[in-house]
């Protein structure tokens, strides 16, 4: 233990004793005595550089010197407790270290601490955005303001601890500003909410940089917080003349603006640790560990199925053994389900980003848009939520930019001045449906058609259904916006959206009524991790075909197959022609028989087109956990991934689209 820490501990103990001795009727003498001890602690705390301790000291000092009357005994007690706790944390940090000359410089190098900081700070920044938006909705609420304060305060504390001075400084000033607002010395205006968001953005960028550096991707100097700081300080200075002593208090201790003014309950929550405000019912787990658990459970399922299919076990007549194994099977299934469920997160965090987006967009474009969300607590696979971010953002942006008319236009057509964009998530038949709808001008069928003709995508004489026309907007380079704004209309985007949704094995549907609005419907699987597959055999190899793309399985009959131009084969099913792809040819596998009559034809659908795949036989249906084949095999045409089959071997999952495209090129 370092000498400072030892001295500190002694002083804190002294303080606690003085407090007890002062008793219920502690007069001004005992308070003065305690303040004296406190100032020694504060000095020592500064020497150690512990933010937490400084904070606790500052708080206690304010409690002991209330503006009027005697200090509340309960508060002093909890102040001392906070102090002891803060002391405990530095003692814990410094004790195991072999007393290097500068403990805190090395702390900032501690990858684990830094990565924890990053995770926590991001969480708080997410909260900041949410709360600022809540304040904008209703500035009279005090809840969001408190929550905002706590978030900035927590980031500041952690940043100070790890010596990210820029972050600390910005948080500190914003905190001061919020404290004034909380004490009704400052009214929250839209300029201030903008400023809060801007500070949040600066912090987000800084955290990103810190993460970048901590991953060892090279050093980058922190961005200068001067611009943000200047703005915050300008706001602060405007009101300083009214509260000169306040500034003095801030100068005396950075923590003078402590968060304990709301009441004892609040104090405890904050003093107990910045990250614990949500309660202790949540545990943060590294996703790597979760993935590992899911892998292991997958292995458990395989091992269990190996036993069940063991010939020795099949011939046994022991009822008890059979019963026990059945029970084991049930438990394994349950464990598998539970481990999968752990990766699910509510989609609400994604919607929250849209809140912010809509706010910025409506400001920039001078349109009044309201975002309505439903189903924020619908859960989806974590990876899925991440992958959905960009496409969803693009669709919302499109709705605001292209869909929603200008205020004048809306007025002319008798629509309410405030436009509405709705985001809805719901479960349906094992799928997640996400709707993005607006009450704007709708998609002009004619304009899309004309544009498509100009681009040479369709013949001018073609007869297309509404759906077919609407889907033209997903063609690369397609954009009908008459002017290019900095938000959308550059013609990149919708094709990327479609690609991304397909990657997630989802589909998009569009419905639109002129003058009424547009409705985008995304249908997505619950998870990326599991699919239902049909297992087929070709020669000695087994392959998995995603059940979602299988339309039909046929036993070919004489006369069903014809060749075209003596090379391409087609199957005629109910007067429709389906090109035939022979899986063994595509993959260079020796089949059981090259005669199509000996095998099966699977009608597979991809991107609205159907073809038939020739395989030897169908083995069965199985729910499989999708695994990547790693970067070594990431671009194998026709292969989407791998999965562990019942016997422990790896089976390849077919990429139906890739198979079809490959057959056309080759």
């Amino acid at each position: 233990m370092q000498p400072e820490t030892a001295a500190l501990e002694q002083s804190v103990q002294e303080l606690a004793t003085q407090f007890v001795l002062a008793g219920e009727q502690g007069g001004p003498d005992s308070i003065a005595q305690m303040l004296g001890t406190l100032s020694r602690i504060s000095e020592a705390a500064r020497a150690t550089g512990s933010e937490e301790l400084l904070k606790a000291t500052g708080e206690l000092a304010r409690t002991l010197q209330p503006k009027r009357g005697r200090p509340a005994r309960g508060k002093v007690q909890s102040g001392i407790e906070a102090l002891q706790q803060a002391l405990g944390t530095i003692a814990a940090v410094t004790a195991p270290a072999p007393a290097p000359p500068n403990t805190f410089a090395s702390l900032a190098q501690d990858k684990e601490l830094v990565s924890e900081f990053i995770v926590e700070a991001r969480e708080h920044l997410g909260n900041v955005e949410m709360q600022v938006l809540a304040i904008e909705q209703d500035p009279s609420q005090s809840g969001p303001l408190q929550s905002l304060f706590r978030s900035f305060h927590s980031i500041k504390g952690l940043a100070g601890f790890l010596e990210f001075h820029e972050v600390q400084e910005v948080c500190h000033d914003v905190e001061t500003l919020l404290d004034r607002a909380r004490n009704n010395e400052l009214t929250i205006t839209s300029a201030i909410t903008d400023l809060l968001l801007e500070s949040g953005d600066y912090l987000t960028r800084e955290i990103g940089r810190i993460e970048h550096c901590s991953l060892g991707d090279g050093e980058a100097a922190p961005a200068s917080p001067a611009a943000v700081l200047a703005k915050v300080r300008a706001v602060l200075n405007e009101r300083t003349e009214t509260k000169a002593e306040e500034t003095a208090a801030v100068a005396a201790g950075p923590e003078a603006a402590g968060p304990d003014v709301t009441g004892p309950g609040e104090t405890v929550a904050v003093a107990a640790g910045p990250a614990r405000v949500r309660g202790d019912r949540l545990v943060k787990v590294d996703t790597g560990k979760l993935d590992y658990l899911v892998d292991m459970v997958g292995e458990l399922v395989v091992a269990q199925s190996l036993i069940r299919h063991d010939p020795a076990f099949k011939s046994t007549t022991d009822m008890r053994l059979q019963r026990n194994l059945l029970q084991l099977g049930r438990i394994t299934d349950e464990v598998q389900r539970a481990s999968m469920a752990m990766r699910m997160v509510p989609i609400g965090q994604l919607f929250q980003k849209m809140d912010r987006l809509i706010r910025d967009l409506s400001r920039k474009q001078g349109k009044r848009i309201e975002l309505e969300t439903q189903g924020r607590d619908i859960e989806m696979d974590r990876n899925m939520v991440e992958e959905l971010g960009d496409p969803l953002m693009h669709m919302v942006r499109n709705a605001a930019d292209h869909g929603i008319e200008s205020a004048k236009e809306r007025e002319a057509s008798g629509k309410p001045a405030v436009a509405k964009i709705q985001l809805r998530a719901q479960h349906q038949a094992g799928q997640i449906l996400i709707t993005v709808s607006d009450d704007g001008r709708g998609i002009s069928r004619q304009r899309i058609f004309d544009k498509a003709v100009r681009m040479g995508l369709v013949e001018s004489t073609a007869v297309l259904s509404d759906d077919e026309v609407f889907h033209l907007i997903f063609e690369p380079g397609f954009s009908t916006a008459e002017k290019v704004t900095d938000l959308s209309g550059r013609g990149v985007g919708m094709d990327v959206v479609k690609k991304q949704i397909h990657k997630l094995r989802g589909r998009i549907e569009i419905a639109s009524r002129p003058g009424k609005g547009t409705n985008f419907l995304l249908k997505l699987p619950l998870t990326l991790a599991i699919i239902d597959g049909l297992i087929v055999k070709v020669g000695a190899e087994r392959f998995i075909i995603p059940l979602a793309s299988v339309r039909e399985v046929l036993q070919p009959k004489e006369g069903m197959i014809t060749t075209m131009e003596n090379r391409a084969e087609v199957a005629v099913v109910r007067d429709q022609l389906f090109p035939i792809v022979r899986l063994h040819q595509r993959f260079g596998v020796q089949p059981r028989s090259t005669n199509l009559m000996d095998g099966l034809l699977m009608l597979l659908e991809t991107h609205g087109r159907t073809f038939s795949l020739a395989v030897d036989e169908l083995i069965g249906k199985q729910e499989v956990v999708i695994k990547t084949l790693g970067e070594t095999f990431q671009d194998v045409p026709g292969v989407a991934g791998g999965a562990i089959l019942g016997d422990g071997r790896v089976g390849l999952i077919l990429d139906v689209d890739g198979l079809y495209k490959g057959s056309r090129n080759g």
Partner: protein
Amino acid sequence: MQSEQTKTSGAQAGKYLVFQLAQEEFAIGVLSVREIIRTQDITKVPHTPPHMKGVINLRGKVIPVMDLRTKLGFPETEYDQRTCVIIVEILTEARTSLYMGLIVDGVAEVLSLAQADIQDVPDFGSASRSPYLLGVAKTKGKIRILLDINQVLASHEVGGLQDVVEASTRQAAGSEQADGVLV
């Protein structure tokens, strides 16, 4: 002279895992070795180079396996009791872990090499230096070829390793030369 050699060979002193391919002994740094397993059922992946044998299931992880014989230009053989898969892990340029199984004829031992045991790859004049070689270790009268595992896993081209190997161990095997070229 010693220092000059160590500078050029780039191989570090330390522990190496020694394994056999045909009649030759190779070694890779033990730090990148995760485990050694018996050969398993390998699932072939279509449209991949011949040395990529496919994928295996290692406790729920799908791991690609490479036949090191084919990769380095030796003739293929049947897998037998001694055949092993060495599971290695390297960090890619994108700083992600890359696992790979290397099929070898057999694993011999773990060898501690001092810097003095390691020599640079001999210069063969015309033959361009193989990118896979770190150096050559000479201990107890035996010669082991030190492989740069990162290069073996990273490179997609085929080095002229065969020539180098043959000359350095003075075991010219004429039949192997014909098979020494991969697609």
